[in-house]
């Protein structure tokens, strides 16, 4: 076969040689004599046995053949044409536009980059997926050998498939870890990754930090998958089992959810393309992915599936994200409240903070000893954002009226929001007023929450925040601020507490200037405040309940103690 297809003469397997060789293999497998002329017949697709894997022939193979039969005659004619233009490999490659995205990999046989190939391969396979959803269950181990079978989707894809498959089979012996790559449905496209990253940012602005379990749970629950499935997805994606999701883990989880919603069954184990190391490694190199994907997705009309996936993902994300910002803020607020209350109750937490963030800042740290994993993550977030800012904070806010601070604070903080740095000013004003904070220690919860949802109102209510709770609210405030940049100064009118009123009064002049936009902003702020209030009230009642139970336990224990004491004395 090698001789026939001309590889021996040329000295390497160029694209044409590949195609011819594969057709000859198919001919040989189907019992036809191996000759140049046999290529012209309609042939079934060649079958490759996976040496590494099960070695089974794909059950998708026969299914694919049906679809492939129609296209094979086309392919054979094209191959004949290719045969004639034997010398002009490169020209052939450039001629067919659909080959262009994949032209670069095949053109350099010794440099087959597995990943771009597999990307292209995966895109190709996506085109066939619409026809054959069934093979997916066995997709993972069968991926490579599915290549030949699924390549029947189209003549041009088949050509690519052929080249890809050949490269795969050649490289299979060379590199063991190629098997995971052609796993198309588990591969995250660049578009999808952007979505995931944006969603991650909406939950947690610092991309290098964690999303806590409760936040992620609320978010993923919106996807309306069943709880056991979500639980299983979590199990798969949280690789270090720390109860929190880093960005790659989050992307993996999101992708699994999207896949599940589109009907793919969940895998037994985390696919290699979704593992955190792979995703993290893939992050810094988006550039070669994007051109491949973009050009390819445009050129191949059959490439519906990933688009559908993306589209569906978009719609599902939009569904999920219908009210993502406020609710997530609220959940973030819950955490902050939890944290602030715990922090208020246990001032020693502050001293613990330097210790814990170091642990939780390490990506693989396991905060097992802490009952509140969310708290530790929050503190990590807080700490991660704190370092640049703490020193200036106390000074700025100390003796001056908060309102003055606010004006100055907002303006410089507007550009700061984009920079991603934690803007100290907005959070700081309240800190130096311990008397104020003490007075409103209970009311703090409400103003804090009001603050967070009503981004612009952060200034005045933020004053009352305890220092501990400031940093965690910052990310959310910052995010909102980017949304309501123009409406920043307007929210104060909706603030609740007394100390804030001073600031609000002083802010009114600036408010009046933009009254038209204010109303909308105010209304949204009111709505958000109400939601936050409701959530807080609920949380409060739950916490009260817990407090009661704890008190009862304590009483019971003390009783026991007293009962035991006289016994021991004797």
């Amino acid at each position: 076969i090698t001789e026939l297809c001309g590889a021996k003469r040329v000295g390497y397997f160029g694209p044409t040689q590949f195609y011819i060789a594969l057709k000859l293999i198919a001919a040989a497998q189907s019992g036809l004599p191996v000759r140049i002329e046999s290529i012209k017949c309609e042939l079934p697709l060649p079958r490759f046995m996976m040496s590494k894997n099960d070695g089974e022939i794909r059950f998708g193979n026969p299914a694919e053949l049906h679809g492939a039969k129609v296209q094979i005659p086309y392919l054979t004619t094209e191959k004949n044409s290719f045969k004639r233009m034997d010398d002009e490999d490169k020209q052939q490659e450039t001629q067919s536009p659909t080959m262009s995205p994949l032209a670069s990999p095949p053109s350099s046989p010794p440099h087959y980059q597995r990943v771009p190939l597999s990307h292209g391969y995966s895109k190709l396979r996506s085109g066939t997926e619409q026809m054959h959803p069934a093979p997916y269950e066995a997709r993972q181990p069968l991926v490579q050998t599915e290549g030949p079978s699924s390549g029947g989707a189209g003549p041009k894809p088949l050509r690519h498939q052929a080249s890809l498959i050949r490269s795969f089979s050649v490289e299979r012996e060379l590199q063991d870890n190629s098997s995971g790559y052609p796993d198309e449905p588990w591969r995250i496209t660049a578009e999808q990754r952007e979505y995931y990253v944006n969603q991650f940012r909406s939950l947690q602005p610092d991309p290098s930090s964690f999303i806590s379990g409760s936040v992620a749970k609320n978010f993923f629950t919106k996807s309306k998958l069943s709880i056991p499935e979500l639980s299983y997805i979590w199990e798969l994606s949280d690789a270090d089992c720390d109860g929190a999701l880093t960005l790659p883990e989050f992307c993996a989880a999101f992708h699994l959810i999207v896949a599940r919603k589109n009907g793919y069954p969940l895998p037994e184990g985390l696919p290699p393309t979704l593992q955190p190391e792979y995703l993290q490694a893939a992050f810094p190199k988006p550039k070669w992915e994007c051109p491949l994907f973009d050009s390819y997705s445009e050129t191949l009309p059959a490439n519906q599936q990933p688009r559908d996936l993306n589209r569906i993902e978009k719609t599902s994300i939009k569904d999920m994200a219908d009210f993502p910002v406020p609710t997530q803020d609220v959940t973030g607020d819950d955490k902050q409240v939890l944290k602030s209350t715990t922090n208020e109750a246990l001032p020693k937490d502050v001293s613990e903070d330097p210790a814990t963030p170091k642990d939780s800042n390490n990506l693989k740290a396991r905060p097992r000893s802490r009952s509140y994993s969310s708290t530790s993550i929050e503190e990590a977030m807080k700490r991660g954002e704190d370092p640049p800012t703490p020193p200036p904070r106390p000074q700025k806010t100390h003796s001056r009226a908060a309102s003055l601070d606010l004006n100055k604070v907002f303006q410089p903080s507007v550009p700061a929001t984009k920079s991603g740095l934690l803007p100290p000013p907005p959070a700081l004003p309240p800190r130096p007023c311990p008397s104020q904070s003490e007075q409103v220690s209970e009311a703090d919860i409400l103003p804090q929450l009001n603050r967070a949802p009503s981004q612009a109102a952060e200034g005045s209510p933020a004053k009352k925040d305890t220092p501990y709770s400031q940093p965690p609210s910052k990310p959310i405030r910052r995010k909102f601020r980017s949304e309501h940049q123009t409406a920043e100064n307007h929210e104060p009118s909706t603030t609740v507490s007394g100390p804030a009123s001073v600031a609000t009064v002083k802010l009114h002049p600036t408010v009046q200037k933009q009254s038209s936009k204010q109303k909308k902003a105010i209304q949204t702020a009111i709505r958000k405040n109400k939601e936050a209030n409701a959530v807080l009230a609920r949380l409060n009642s739950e916490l009260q309940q817990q407090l009661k139970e704890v008190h009862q336990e304590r009483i019971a224990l003390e009783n026991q103690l007293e009962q035991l004491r006289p016994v021991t004395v004797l």
Partner: protein
Amino acid sequence: MAVCIAVIAKENYPLYIRSAPTENELKFHYMVHTSLDVVDEKISAMGKALVDQRELYLGLLYPTEDYKVYGYVTNSKVKFVMVVDSSNTALRDNEIRSMFRKLHNSYTDVMCNPFYNPGDRIQSRAFDNMVMSMMVQVC
């Protein structure tokens, strides 16, 4: 090695119970149930003892002619009970401890899953796999 492993919640209902498939499962369920009394006895005897790895491990709860039953309790009063075949000679204490430690770690992983509500039955596949590996170990 172990023929039956059970995770019992604080309120003494089972969160997870798995026996080696060849055996009569009901018998093991009864054994685990009766061992709960012994566990409670040991817990109350500990009293105000500091929580320590050593005291999490309860040791041999009681031996029967065919089996030995070991116990382990966590800080949140979740109990692990393991029934071991007596014919498996010389299963050292350390090995049992290490098995319990692995159980505890897997249980913590299950807990970390935010979709898991404490008090639910444990349906995690990873936990399942770990338990199965422990049960098939020395067969």
